[in-house]
């Protein structure tokens, strides 16, 4: 009978089909991996007991559960069985011991795996866990951007041991990404870009046209991106910018300066050099390069504007990093005469600085373009605050799924978030027509670094318990008269104080009060000199008044003091620790001479130590010798691990070194 045949067959098929899923389940890869690991562990074990322990391990899912870290569940150790097992050093993957970092292998129980590596912690198959599978969540961070993981908890601008992340964050700040994009912790960011109210006083239509076409070709140092403007847009924007009414007092200052007599270019050249302009600016590429290239500055701006600007830059742009020098009227005339004489484009057309006759209609269109193109985000007027960001919110960009990103025309890209971000930074408008983001023309290394910094931006901030307390204390800037001086000389443009400030200077001011002597600092502020000749960027001579210098020196030496640095390091130590001869012997045997100059001999890498006695406080010298990296993480000075006695003896020796003037005087006599 047929039904019986069918019944027999379907029953067998029924049994067979139902058995497939349990069979698949029994053959899941992690089970065989765990069996392999048992064998590997048994062969690598150092003792029979240990080998038996490996053999006895049960096949099971292993997980780290972190209720306090977003309830994270990481089952990576189900396959990566040797990640915390020293026996598994150099073992084949996936069993290899995790490389040593600040948090591993000791703190797996605190951080799990995905908090740094990303990927899908709860998954138990390679494709799902690494995020390769179609419907899996965000994939693991590529090794190139692994430091993004650090950035999830370490929100500071610089993160020790994460150079790429730190660089990415620095690039983002410098190029003002936060002006258009909202990022947690940078809500109050304001761009340094000048408010564009004095264009008509400063430059001409032809120059502005060149600039708007592509700022980088005019000034390679600029952080202003290229917007690929059409000729019509450039025209409209020019009319708009020339159509703006400059503030009355600035217009008067420029007009008055225009009428002043000529200066002395030769004297100006000397002042230009003393003022160390190229500590920030460049001239024909020489210099630091965080401020505009000056070789053609006289072609970009009128004489009156230059003169007025040099005298009071902060009136023109309250957020500029340029300090206000104490030039006398004739000194500033001399400087500008030098600029006019030598730093100009001799091939430039004659009419490059001719102003524009403003057409109201075009100007109105230009103002619209100014908004539509997002110019206002950086060039916000003085008082205006940015109510809503021009660009998209970047919080959570690190958690974006590649599927939610518009790859548009970029068929060439791998469908991953890092690839998309990289392409967006390198060539923002290659995805589709009419995209708003301008092109910053970053070198590939910077792009990689910024992608790392972006991937660190999670949708949610790290839980309170995991947020890193940055090692740098918060930078406190005094108010009142002192604050005004800090502001006037823009100390923070170059120096770091705590977690704030620029990175041009190698001397942070955070502990400056414990470091240098007050009298030395006063004279240094008045007439600075190069402490480390090897470094191009040097402290300018501000031509500040003695009163200003004394006030600043006094404030710095009393305010920026680290209580951990002893005033007198010898207190409580036996007199034998002051053994100068032993200190000198140490100086020679440790090879300090290779970098430092004492007397007439020594290397140029470190600062000369000839004037240690008058310059540095002994407490600082001692603290530094005990561990230079504690004070500047990137310093090359080796940490010799000196004992207190040795460090004190060396300090005692260095404290005998007299200022060069005295040495010279002694030589003469």
């Amino acid at each position, binding site marked *: *009978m047929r039904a*019986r*045949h069918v*019944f*027999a067959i*379907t*029953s*067998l098929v*029924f*049994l067979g089909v*139902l*058995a497939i*899923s*349990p069979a698949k389940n029994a053959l899941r890869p992690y089970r065989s991996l765990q069996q392999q690991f048992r064998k590997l562990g048994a062969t690598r074990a150092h003792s029979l007991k240990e080998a038996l322990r490996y053999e006895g391990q049960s096949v*099971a*899912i292993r*997980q780290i*559960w972190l209720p306090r870290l977003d309830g994270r*569940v990481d*089952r990576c150790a189900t396959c990566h069985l040797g990640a915390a097992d020293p026996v598994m050093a150099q073992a084949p993957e996936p069993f290899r011991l995790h490389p040593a970092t600040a948090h591993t292998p000791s703190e797996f129980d605190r951080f799990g795996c995905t908090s740094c590596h990303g990927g899908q912690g709860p998954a138990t198959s390679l494709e799902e866990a690494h995020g390769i599978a179609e419907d899996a969540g965000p994939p693991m961070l590529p090794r190139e951007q692994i430091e993004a993981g650090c950035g999830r908890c370490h929100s500071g601008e610089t993160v020790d041991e994460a150079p790429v992340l730190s660089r990415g964050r620095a690039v983002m700040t410098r190029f003002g990404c936060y002006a258009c994009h909202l990022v947690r912790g940078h809500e109050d960011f304001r761009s340094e870009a000048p408010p564009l109210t004095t264009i008509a006083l400063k430059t001409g239509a032809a120059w502005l046209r060149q600039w708007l076409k592509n700022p980088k070709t005019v000034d390679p140092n600029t952080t202003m991106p290229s917007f690929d403007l059409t000729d019509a847009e450039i025209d409209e924007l020019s009319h708009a910018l020339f159509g703006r009414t400059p503030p009355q007092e600035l217009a008067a200052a420029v007009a008055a300066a225009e009428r002043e007599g000529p200066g002395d270019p030769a004297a100006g050249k000397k002042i230009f050099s003393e003022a160390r302009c190229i500590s920030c600016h460049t001239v024909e590429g020489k210099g630091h390069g965080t401020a505009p290239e000056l070789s053609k500055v006289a072609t970009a701006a009128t004489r009156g504007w230059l003169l007025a600007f040099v005298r009071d830059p902060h009136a023109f742009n309250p957020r500029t990093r340029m300090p206000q020098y104490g030039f006398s009227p004739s000194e500033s005339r001399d400087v500008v005469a030098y600029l006019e004489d030598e730093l100009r484009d001799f091939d430039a057309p004659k009419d490059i600085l001719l102003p524009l006759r403003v057409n109201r209609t075009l100007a109105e269109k230009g103002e619209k373009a100014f908004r539509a193109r997002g110019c206002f985000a950086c060039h916000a007027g003085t008082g205006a605050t940015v109510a809503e960001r021009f660009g998209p919110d970047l919080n959570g960009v690190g958690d974006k799924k590649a599927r939610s990103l518009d790859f548009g025309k970029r068929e060439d890209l791998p469908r991953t978030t890092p690839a998309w971000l990289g392409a967006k930074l390198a060539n923002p408008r290659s995805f589709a027509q009419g995209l708003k983001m301008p092109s910053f023309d970053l070198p590939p290394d910077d792009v990689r670094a910024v992608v790392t910094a972006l991937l660190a931006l999670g949708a949610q901030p790290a839980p309170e318990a995991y947020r890193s307390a940055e090692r740098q204390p918060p930078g406190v800037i005094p108010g009142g008269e002192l604050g005004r001086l800090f502001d006037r000389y823009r100390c923070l443009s170059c120096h770091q104080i705590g977690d704030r400030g620029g990175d041009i200077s190698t001397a942070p001011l955070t502990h400056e009060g414990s470091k240098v002597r007050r009298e030395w600092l006063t004279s240094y502020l008045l007439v600075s000199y190069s402490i480390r000749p090897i470094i191009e960027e040097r402290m300018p001579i501000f031509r500040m008044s003695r009163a200003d210098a004394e006030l600043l020196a006094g404030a710095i030496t009393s305010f920026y003091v680290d209580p951990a640095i002893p005033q007198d390091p010898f207190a409580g130590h036996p007199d034998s620790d002051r053994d100068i001869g032993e200190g000198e012997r140490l100086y020679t045997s440790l090879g300090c001479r290779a970098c430092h100059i004492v007397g007439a001999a020594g290397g140029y890498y470190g600062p000369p130590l000839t004037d240690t006695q008058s310059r540095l406080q002994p407490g600082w010298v001692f603290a530094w010798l005990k561990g230079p990296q504690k004070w500047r993480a990137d310093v090359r000075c080796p940490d010799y691990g000196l004992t207190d006695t040795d460090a004190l003896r060396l300090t005692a020796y260095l404290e005998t070194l007299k200022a060069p003037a005295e040495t010279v005087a002694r030589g003469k006599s």
Partner: protein
Amino acid sequence: MSSSDPMKRRDFLTLTGVGACAAAAAGAGLVTLDFLSPKVLFEPPTRFVAGTPLDFPEGTVRFNREQRAYVIGTSGGVYALTAVCTHLGCITRYLSDENVIACPCHGSRFDVEGNVVHGPAPRPLPWIEVKQDTAGNLVVDTAAVIPAGTVLRV
């Protein structure tokens, strides 16, 4: 199996079909049991760091609410007791005035070594393992019951 023996063939087919169905049902039952047994647990870890030996001078009784355990310092060292009453599983509390561990549910009382002083509790409170890790911290494992009287010398 020949066609001349239709009766036997019918029986064979029936047996095959019913047998396969029975096997499938039995297999499904086993797979279901496997399905129902959890493969991962979200339970708090049984090991916790109680502090350093210095935190437990003689006569200290510290109650860890989360882990339901007492860590007790004596002249000889440190030991730990579970705080779960052996009667019906209520959480006991330490009364420092009387130096006893008392259960709020049915009035059982234990001394600080876990012995029943009074009440319905059938057994003394179990002693649990205390170890010292490499950093010198005391690590208590509430899941590891050890013989009463095992004091960690510190």
